[in-house]
């Protein structure tokens, strides 16, 4: 039995669909009213993405080993990309690498 077959009807899918759209609307409204703020908007995007992965892509209904084999390593790789920021700030202030 595949993951989609294990799902109990479409009701949770419709709820997640509405929640994701509501969050997208809130994100835009927040940006227009309060100005773009990176961290709150990224948090909202991560929540939207996790809902989509768990309920649209049915990862929640697969074996936990699949989740463990895929997600932590992807997040780790993306996390390690944060090492670029120090050089980005150096470039902003045009400081020499050599002191």
């Amino acid at each position: 039995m595949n993951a989609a077959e294990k799902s109990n009807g479409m009701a949770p899918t419709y709820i997640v669909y509405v929640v994701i759209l509501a969050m997208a609307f809130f994100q835009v409204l927040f940006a227009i009213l309060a100005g773009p703020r990176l961290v709150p908007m990224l948090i909202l995007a991560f929540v939207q993405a996790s809902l989509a992965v768990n309920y649209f892509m049915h990862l929640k209904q697969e074996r936990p080993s699949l989740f463990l084999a895929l997600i932590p390593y992807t997040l780790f790789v993306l996390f390690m990309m944060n090492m670029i920021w120090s050089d980005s700030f150096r470039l902003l202030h045009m400081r020499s690498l050599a002191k």
Partner: protein
Amino acid sequence: MSQANLAVDPHLGTMETKPFAIPSSKLVMWLFIISDAVTFGALLFAYGYLRNASPDWPTPFESASIWNSLLMTFILVTSSLTVLIALKAEQEDDRARAFRWVIVTAALGVLFTALHLREWMDLIGKGVRTFQNPWGSPMFGATFFAITGLHMAHVVGGVVALIATGLIYKAGRYSAKHIEILALYWHFVDLVWMFVVPLVYLMNMKR
């Protein structure tokens, strides 16, 4: 392992059990998705690097573009729902209905691409090119067209795959498994867009 099973398939005894209890083709799609996620992640980080390092980074998106991006989000998320409805119809052995919903999903993908191209044409009309624009850092166009262009290529590829898979499925040569694997890809395209909107559109909103 019984002797009867070995008699049916002599390789059965040497085959390992599937570690994640999913078909190999589905596992391959998951592996493609995580590698593609890292590709998009690298592009978005490169964009962030350049944006942060450029004091004159342009913020050209007016409210019309922002609402347009919200409309595009609505279309893409709805297309994720329609592909799930197609999958549900397939599980109920209603091939005709499943095919119709696959085509609805593809049509939503075409609509998304049309809106995106309209956005591109609007920016090109204002003088934005890959390495120049009238407002500030010339890298704005390069990053915008690279990120949204790669995403649009994924949508177009998904539309072609949806139509092809839908037709083969309608002919009876594909099963629910194929629709489900394609649906995984389509949801991923949706997922990437959830990060493109805040980082590329909302952060570059005109103030």
